[in-house]
């Protein structure tokens, strides 16, 4: 039901977000065409489940990433590729208006560190969505990085658990960072220019159970840390 509601509003909501990011906030993404081409290739190459894992530095990362990965027209034609998100409820669903907005934007609000039952329920919903070939965006570090860098040791095992719960799931790592983003913040600065990369993570674990979930989560975070290093190497 939420998906159909989002789909109905998407011809208005998605372009509006794009306009806000590009023309109101003045953001630009270097290599935008390449980002979108690669995402299209990944999505069209194979119909299977896809989970996007990204670094997390600002409160609007999920919007910027969705904007970087596809045009409104692309999302309109391939709505399943507009990623589901799990934003923090206290920030993004604090008022009825915001709750309606995030509901329309394929978001499943969750209280981080809240009731285990609730968190598990949301993860189960997300797993179900990915299993049905809907794309989801997850931040393996769970929250915005306090150091401004990806730390594989802080990866939450939930992402590994979702991966293990979806057979043949492909994990797409997205590293995106604004030129002025030294550490975490609420918003990127106005006129920010983002650079980054997108790549598929090859994952394999010999562990079982919880250890396997943690291992997978750390592998994903390590891939993001490598992409981060490449980002800084390129800037030097």
């Amino acid at each position: 039901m939420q998906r159909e509601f989002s789909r109905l509003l998407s011809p208005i909501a998605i372009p509006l977000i794009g306009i806000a990011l590009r023309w109101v906030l003045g953001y630009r993404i270097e290599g935008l065409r390449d980002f979108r081409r690669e995402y299209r290739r990944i999505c069209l190459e194979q119909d299977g489940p896809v989970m996007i894992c990204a670094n997390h530095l600002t409160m609007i990362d999920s919007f910027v990433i969705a904007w970087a990965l596809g045009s409104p027209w692309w999302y309109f034609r391939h709505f399943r590729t507009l990623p589901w998100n799990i934003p923090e409820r206290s920030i993004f669903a604090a008022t009825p208006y915001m709750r309606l907005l995030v509901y329309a934007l394929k978001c499943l609000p969750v209280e981080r560190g809240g009731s285990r039952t609730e968190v598990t329920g949301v993860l189960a919903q997300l797993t179900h969505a990915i299993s049905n070939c809907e794309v989801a965006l997850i931040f393996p570090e769970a929250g915005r990085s306090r150091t401004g860098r990806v730390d594989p040791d802080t990866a939450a095992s939930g992402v590994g658990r979702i991966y293990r719960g979806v057979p043949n799931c492909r994990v797409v790592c997205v590293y995106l960072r604004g030129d002025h983003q030294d550490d975490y913040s609420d918003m990127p600065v106005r006129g920010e220019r983002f650079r980054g990369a997108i790549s598929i993570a090859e994952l394999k674990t010999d562990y079982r159970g919880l250890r396997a979930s943690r291992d997978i989560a750390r592998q994903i975070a390590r891939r993001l840390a490598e992409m981060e290093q490449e980002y800084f190497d390129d800037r030097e």
Partner: protein
Amino acid sequence: MEKSEIFEKVVKILTPYVKSQEALEGVSPETHILDDLKVNSARLVDVVLEFEDAFDIEIDDDDVDKVETVGNAVELIEAKIG
């Protein structure tokens, strides 16, 4: 193994992850691991994996969701030890 012994071991394992030393001093089976002891939720899995090593048991993903209080952890471990 006695329940009290499991409880003591559980508290010892939790100690390095606890941010509220005050809550740790008055720890009881009803103490909430995340809310009272202020253990980072992302670190809960590390705690549970330490339970696995310390008690030589295997805990499923789903079982972690049942661990909210120190008492829950003790009961889970007790059940696994058999």
